[in-house]
């Protein structure tokens, strides 16, 4: 399963690579990283690099996670990826906006990686 992680914090990559070491080694999961909304959009627009699941932070400079979600839903790549929003602000307004824009799930920081792992495995 191709997973695209979008977060302006570079150390997120390290966390995912260590937490999903076994899954990455076995080829069960393949992680890609983008550090801004625009970078993620550019990545997705390349037809051969579509992702099944996108994990995106909301609060990013430039294009926010919600704007990215909106654009993804507007451009509707095939097959439509599953999008999980992750944010430090777990308030209802953010949740409602994410849901309205077509988010499949919503996680608040600090991310419980065991819970995330379970969720990802259920998708797989």
């Amino acid at each position, binding site marked *: 399963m191709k997973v695209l992680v979008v977060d302006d914090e570079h150390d997120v990559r390290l966390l995912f690579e260590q937490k999903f070491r076994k899954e990455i080694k076995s080829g069960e999961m393949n992680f890609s990283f983008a550090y801004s909304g625009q970078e993620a959009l550019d990545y997705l627009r390349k037809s051969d690099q579509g992702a099944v699941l996108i994990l995106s932070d909301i*609060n990013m*400079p430039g294009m926010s996670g919600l704007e990215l979600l909106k654009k993804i839903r507007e451009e509707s790549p095939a097959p439509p990826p599953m999008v999980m929003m992750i944010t430090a602000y777990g308030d209802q307004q953010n949740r409602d906006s994410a849901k309205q824009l077509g988010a499949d799930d919503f996680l608040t920081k600090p991310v419980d*990686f065991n819970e995330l792992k379970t969720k990802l495995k259920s998708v797989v």
Partner: protein
Amino acid sequence: MNFELILAVIIAAYLRKSFQTKKEFPKWYNILSIIFYGGIVLLVLNITVGRWTSVTRWLGHALMLYLIYILFVEDVFKKAKSILIAIAPFVLLSLLKDVSALINITQFKVWKNLIDTALGFSVIWMFIMWIITNKQRKELEKERIKTKHEEEQKILVESMNDQLEIQVRERTKEITQQKEELEHTLDELKSAQAQLIQAEKMASLGQLTAGIAHEIQNPLNFVNNFSELNKEMLEELKDEIAKPAAQRDDGLGNELIADLISNSEKINYHGKRADNIVKSMLQHSRASSGTKELTDINALCDEYLRLAFHGTRAKDKSFNSGMESVFDPSLDAGDDGSGKIKIVPQDIGRVLLNLLTNAFYEVNEKRKKEIPGYQPMVKIKTRRCDNNVEIEVSDNGRGIPEEIRKKIFQPFFTTKPTGEGTGLGLSLSYDIINAHNGQISVTSVPGESTTFKIILPTS
């Protein structure tokens, strides 16, 4: 007619009046009055009772001699010496004539002619003296009037001086009172200013609370996640070590150890990051010590760029903006801290916070106009330039019209709606940069962009 009696009456009347004897010398007033009225009575007797003529003549001589005596002896009549000189020849000659008649010398014609001629001259002398004295008297009178006028003027000037002094005293009292009131007002203003500065500081801190929370939350998340990961990896490593040597995966063991070390470094790094933000926040809320410290200006700019961004975003969820930082590597602290510059970090932090918050506010306001293709962008740039450091904060917001640009550093000037700005941010920033012997300037293209440039000496 007894001419001496007439003269005695006139001189008595003159002395009595001229020397103001009634008021100044009552004794002489009485004596002169007796001579005056006595003389008149004798004159009447001289005219009406023919046989008293010789008596009144000799009494006339006596009165005149007495007058000559007092004019000669008494200091009171010193000023009337000219009368003495004028009448003395006539009085003495007249007396000599009567004495001569008494002892019958007048039978000698020559003597009689001599005395009559002398009497004639003494009358002329008296007349000349009268003219001279009268002239002198007039001059003296003129002089007296002049002196009196001068004295009156002097009194007037003195009275005006007194009045002026009273007015000066009253005015001085008023001014002193006003000065005290002004000093009191100044104290109150200083206190109000200090309160406003603190209020502005707390307002900017309040605006950023959410941003600060986010900035602390992120590193804390990393600390939590990396420490959890370490725990899992240690358990994995423990399991690996517990395996028989033949089944052990040494590669995995080494990989886990390398990750553990790396993660510990990350925990340390993010812990310090949160620590720095808390310290900055405390420094910002505290009164400035005013002490310059060696500071990593690039790190300070980066920190406040992020704080201002998240602070603005926390206020308006729809807000977003690009951020770009271009930092001069020669200003990085480096391992030996050589890139640091000497500033008061909390003060310069406040300036950066003000400029960056304003920049994000401006791009957000322009974004709300929904101009097609508009991408909000805020940039911060540092550059070492000889013995100075240049910091540029620019945005592609609405820009500042020229007429407003002149006023932006004035206290309480704000273009923000009521309640959104204190109008003190840029004014305080200006004061802070001045206190660092630096300069702050602004350039702007209305409708397109604004750039604030700060120049600070490095030491």
